[in-house]
């Protein structure tokens, strides 16, 4: 009995380390990918020259950026609440890492297989709203304050359709267990839940964009309006934490979408992590593509989209799902 508990802890500990590495690596890859895709859309090379000749096409660019941010001076602005100011980036990044614990990357690759995996992820992603709010509030900056206010109303509003959409999938499968949801879908695309729930997928995608503060819903940090929004006063590593968290939440959102609608690790041939990562990266690429294509929506429009369109549609989707299940 005494042996059993430490083993569990060791698994979690090792898992957390692996996840941190995964999150870090993902951020590096995504930063590079984002810039290269942006460059492709803009018809320019993007990062190209940085790095020795053995690393062509500026592959080392994100690493240079990261190390530079580590080497930057960090300071608390005058008048800021220093405890909350430094707490905010930490509680922004920490829940993102916790979220990955329950995600089944492959048939045998999951740290904790729990019945409430989906609830856990939804609960922990909600904390990010608090982190951004604290960041904006504690930095004693008016732009930060407006950014924080925007973030709260945006985050709270978009949680509702997100939950409703997730609920309709959960009613179909009858479980909150992410592994079971992924396992319940077949190998071929027509066996995935996107076929049964196409509307739910679209709604989830829009909500995920809004929850991760991606363009066209990047209002909390709207560059041209609020200089840098909630992280206006953050420098160096604290700023990098917010960046890391943003990319981590993007990956989490893409992971959930892949599991709920695209069959997770299932795929033609052998199921495995490669299918999962491929789906996740396709979704991330679409997110990046959208970012560099659309203008930003206005704040009242953002809330109107949510309350007038997404929530009624999500409720409708849920009712149809329930009706079909009941029949």
């Amino acid at each position: 009995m005494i042996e059993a508990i430490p083993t569990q802890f060791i698994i979690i500990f090792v898992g957390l380390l692996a996840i941190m590495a995964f999150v870090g690596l993902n951020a590096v890859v995504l930063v590079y990918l984002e810039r290269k895709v942006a460059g492709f859309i803009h018809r320019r090379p993007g990062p190209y020259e940085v790095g020795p000749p053995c690393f062509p096409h500026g592959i080392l660019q994100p690493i240079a950026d990261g190390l530079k941010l580590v080497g930057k001076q960090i300071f608390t602005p005058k008048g800021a609440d220093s405890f909350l100011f430094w707490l905010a980036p930490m509680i922004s990044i920490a829940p993102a890492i916790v979220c990955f614990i329950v995600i089944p990357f492959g048939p045998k690759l999951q740290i904790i297989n729990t019945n409430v995996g989906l609830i856990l992820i939804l609960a922990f992603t909600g904390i990010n709203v608090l982190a951004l709010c604290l960041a904006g509030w504690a930095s004693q900056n008016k732009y930060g304050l407006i950014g924080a206010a925007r973030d709260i109303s945006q985050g709270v509003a978009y949680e509702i359709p997100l939950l409703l959409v997730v609920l309709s999938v959960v009613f179909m499968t009858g479980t909150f267990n992410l592994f079971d949801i992924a396992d319940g879908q077949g190998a071929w695309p027509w066996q995935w839940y996107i076929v049964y729930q196409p509307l739910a997928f679209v709604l989830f995608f829009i909500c995920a964009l809004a929850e991760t503060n991606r363009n066209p819903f990047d209002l909390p940090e709207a560059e041209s309006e609020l200089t840098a929004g909630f992280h206006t006063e953050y420098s160096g590593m604290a700023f990098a934490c917010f960046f890391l968290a943003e990319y981590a939440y993007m990956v989490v959102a893409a992971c959930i979408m892949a599991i709920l609608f695209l069959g997770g690790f299932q795929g033609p041939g052998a199921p495995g992590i490669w299918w999962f990562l491929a789906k996740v990266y396709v979704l991330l690429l679409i997110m990046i593509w959208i970012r560099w294509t659309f203008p930003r929506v206005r704040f009242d429009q953002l809330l109107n989209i949510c309350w007038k369109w997404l929530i009624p549609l999500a409720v409708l989707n849920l009712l149809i799902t329930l009706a079909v299940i009941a029949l």
Partner: protein
Amino acid sequence: MNLDLRLDTQGDFYSQRFQPTEREDTLVLNMGPQHPSTHGVLRILLEIDGEYIIRAEPVLGYIHRMHEKMAEVMSYPQYLPNPGRTDYLHALAWNWAHVAAVERLMGIEVPERAEYIRVITCELNRISSHLLWWGAILLDLGAFTPIMYAFDDRERIQDIMQRNTGSRLTYCYYRFGGVSADIDDKFIEDTRAECARLKDRAKMFKDLVTDNFILRKRLEEIGEIPVDTCRKYGATGPVLRGSGQAYDVRRAEPYSIYDRFDFNIPVYDSCDSMGRYLVRMDEIQESIKIIEQALDTLPEGDYILPKAPKRPKPPAGDVYFAVEGARGKIGMHLVSDGGKSPYRLKLRAPGFSNLSLFSEVAQGTLISDAIAILASLDLVIPEIDR
């Protein structure tokens, strides 16, 4: 990001003067001088209630560069490069206004060919100015890609222009009595190719941006400026034409040879930001039409008056010359006392009048809308401050 941004500081002179308000639940936000969407160093004091703007007041003078005073201490040829630096985006229109004011006072007749060259280069410059504005407004609305496409065309125009003007941005090409260099076949060939290309690109601009659902929602019915407000503040250019009045200096008081060309003056009655957007998009096409007509009928002859005075000394008197710039009516009021430098030179900057109506229009709008309005006015701050 500046001065009185901290909640605990008292702010500087302007924000203290702005502070006293009747309401207690509002926030005074200081936008600028370093802010990405003020296009330079414009500073705007905003009193906001939540996201809604109650009052807005522009603060000017952060890039005042003494242009009018410099005219009084410099001789006429020494002052030639300066107008191009007031409005660096449409430098040639300012250059033209200055040169033509002196010419009118002295009674110099510019050769035919020089007038054609002036029209062609000035319209090319107008296109490049509008292209930059197009990228910048979309940058302010949160779309980053269009400015890259706009600069793609802009760089081509700059390459064409630098061939005979010698510079990329702050052109100083017109001289008293003509232009400084003749255009050659390569210039004509490149210009024709670029005109054809721009006509092609217009379709892409429309599909990619103008028809975009989010853009329309962001610009339509935002920042409605009734034509009366325009008249009250003396707004000109695309701002006035977007409000339904077809006033264009090129048509209203034709200078140079503009009366020989067949072109439309785009007018939209919607009075909103989208109207101003569409006016500028159409003006690019109209400029192309003018350039093509001018290239077709380009006469042979001198590009500068052979007897043109190098150091003009206009007779005593005063003269006013107006030119249609990319932002509106550019006016130069020159008072001469017969000396080698003007007694007084008054510059009428269209941006100044266009900005003046901002504080009235911005009332009751959201911050995002205010930025869309500001961008749709197409401001160049050094021109406003002079």
